[in-house]
């Protein structure tokens, strides 16, 4: 029997969670070690700068070309897949997508689902949705399995359990699976293998994500190292793939550079162990593979980002995770601080379109704008530029008609009034001098508590003499 899997509720805001994460030495060590290693692996995988830059440019052009024709490509994909025997479904919201998935499972009277790694299914919170309907939905990627077993969410899109070390996993397996504790990573993986193999055998339905959906041939391409993706898409009688509408590319050849960029940027591998290209359900003369294949195309705010030519670039993303691996903020606060499905720089620019800025008001500003994310992005998304744009949208007044979902979440009349005052002060010489006169004489009356600044700094005290004054005095003394 399946039971509802309790997911640890995240408390507090981004700031509150960040404070907690920064004080957690174990967490910080786990992330620091992992990110350093991932950065090195990526660097080693791109030894030739010219080759890398040429490929990134090509990757950017391929995604931009696909997006410039995306409605046509989605229709072409649907036509080809349908001709291949795959049933295509469309969902505007995660609720709709869940209903579709549930109805497919229900039609088969399924009670057990195994899932390959899929971030879109995380967006949908599919595990919880199905568990509430008495359907067990089990993660089969080792990292996702560990995280699910502990009632957590992934903290990295490629390495979901990166926040845990072997001892924590060992204790978890001991507590939940009743096995002996072991510090041997190989043995831990073999425990996972044995447990999950039985689940692959029993499953009524397999769910997976999609890395690239190829319109030309009607093909769903998945990359992975473990083989759980192949298991989920091959062993159960039904396969349901869920993906975002931005994953479609025009031609089969387009995936050659994208694949190379993806695996090298994500893990520093020339290729993943498996590249799994699925073009249809089992044919009459074939002996395995699912009898039914479904594709659920999910919008969930993507068309909102698409509506704006600048923000549209967010949808170039191929989900490699390089931006988070290189992010100084992510490395320090960890994935869970972001509180949403996609953490790190890509999370900061995609999540507002999905859940609205009201829910993630600190996302655009949780960045030092150091630019590392933009520099490593394999499809050249100008992430810092997107963050700055979202900061603007975040403080727009309703009259300024923000272009992002729940834009103006941080709009404040008081802040606006202060800036208006500051602007008029600096554009009127008379008022400016008057202010300066006052500030230099009554500086001691300056406020001692100026918001977040004084949490970590002493309050600014105006100088006794202004720069104007000093300059005048200096010139009056003549050349010395």
């Amino acid at each position, binding site marked *: 029997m399946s039971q509802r899997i309790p997911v640890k509720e995240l408390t507090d805001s981004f700031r509150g969670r960040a404070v907690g994460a920064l004080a957690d030495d174990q967490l910080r060590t786990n992330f620091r070690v992992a990110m350093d*290693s991932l950065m090195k692996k990526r660097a080693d995988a791109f030894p030739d700068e010219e080759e890398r830059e040429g490929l990134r440019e*090509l990757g950017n052009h391929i995604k931009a070309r696909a997006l*410039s024709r*995306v409605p046509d490509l989605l229709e072409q994909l649907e036509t080809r897949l349908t001709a291949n025997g795959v049933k295509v479904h469309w969902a505007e919201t995660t609720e709709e997508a869940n209903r579709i998935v549930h109805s497919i499972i229900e039609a088969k009277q399924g009670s057990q689902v195994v899932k390959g790694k899929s971030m879109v299914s995380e967006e949908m919170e599919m595990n919880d949705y199905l568990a509430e309907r008495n359907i067990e939905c089990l993660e089969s990627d080792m990292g996702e399995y560990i995280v699910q077993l502990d009632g957590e969410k992934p903290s990295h899109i490629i*390495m979901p359990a990166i926040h845990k070390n072997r001892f924590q996993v060992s204790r978890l397996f001991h507590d939940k699976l009743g096995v002996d504790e072991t510090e041997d990573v190989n043995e831990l993986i*073999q425990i996972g293998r044995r447990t999950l193999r039985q689940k692959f055998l029993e499953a009524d339905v397999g769910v997976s994500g999609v890395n690239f959906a190829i319109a030309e041939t009607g093909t769903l391409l998945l990359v992975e190292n*473990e083989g759980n993706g*192949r298991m989920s898409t091959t062993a159960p009688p039904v396969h349901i793939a869920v993906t975002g509408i931005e994953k479609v590319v025009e031609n089969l050849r387009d995936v050659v550079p994208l694949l190379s960029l993806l695996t090298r940027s994500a893990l520093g591998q*020339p290729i993943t162990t498996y590249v799994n290209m*699925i073009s249809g359900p089992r044919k009459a003369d074939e002996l395995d593979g699912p009898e039914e294949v479904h594709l659920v195309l999910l919008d969930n705010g993507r068309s909102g980002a698409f509506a704006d030519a600048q923000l549209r670039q967010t949808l170039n993303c191929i989900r490699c995770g390089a931006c988070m691996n290189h992010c100084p903020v992510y490395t320090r606060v960890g994935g869970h601080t972001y509180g949403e499905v996609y953490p790190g720089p890509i999370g900061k620019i995609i999540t507002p379109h999905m859940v609205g800025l009201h829910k993630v008001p600190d996302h655009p500003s949780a960045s030092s704008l150091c630019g590392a994310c933009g520099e490593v992005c394999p499809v050249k998304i100008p992430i810092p530029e997107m963050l700055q744009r979202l900061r603007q949208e975040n403080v727009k007044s309703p009259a300024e008609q923000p272009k992002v979902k729940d834009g103006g979440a941080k709009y404040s009349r008081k802040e606006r009034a202060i800036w208006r005052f500051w602007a008029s002060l600096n554009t009127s010489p008379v008022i400016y001098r008057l202010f300066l006169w006052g500030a230099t004489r009554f500086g001691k009356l300056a406020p001692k508590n100026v918001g977040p600044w004084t949490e970590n700094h002493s309050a600014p005290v105006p100088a006794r003499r202004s720069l104007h004054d000093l300059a005048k005095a200096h010139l009056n003394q003549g050349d010395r």
Partner: protein
Amino acid sequence: MSARSNILNKLRAGLAGTTPRPDDFDEGLVTRPWQYAPEDRITRLRSLMEAVHTEIHQLTTEEWPSKVQELLESRGLKNVLYAPGTEHGKLLAEHWQRAEPRPELLVYDRPIEEWKEELFWQVDASVTGTVGGIAATGSLVLWPDRHEPRLMSLLPPLHIALLKASEVEDNLYGMMQKHNWSAGLPTNLLLVSGPSKTADIEQVLAYGAHGPKELVVLILEDG
């Protein structure tokens, strides 16, 4: 209005007044850095695959069936799944008749549903063909069909793959073009670049996650 038309309408509205970007795909970017002299192709493939724990042997067409026997016997395996309907399957069966080795030959001759439990837990090894290899990334290309179904290269803990030396291409792009993949793909086309692995715990590499724990590639020299 359906979700489909809502989504497509929104996307179309976003593109109003724009023209599609040109197709400026430069194939040189994915071929030029990945070209090898014929004698270097196998070396490159070998070194990449061996780096991820693949066992590789270069053999003649006559030798390989006895190598399969040796691989199985040295590991003390009970059985091996093979495809009697293929050329290489016939050669293997002939060798088995002559040498009468201990491991039993199994055939994937019925739908998965009829022997799922056995295939998941009881089959020790499999021998499959490939339609080629890719030097740039150290990959095998598998084209599963009725004779060699999809799970045959996934479930048994030991997968032995046969690769003809003459069918190794420089890079994925070349492979795709040469065999005109875009004209028609099988239900499932696979690139396999080593045994199953994971680095999900502390980034420590562990082999045999869900698929084969061992991948052995027998590279067959022509003649």
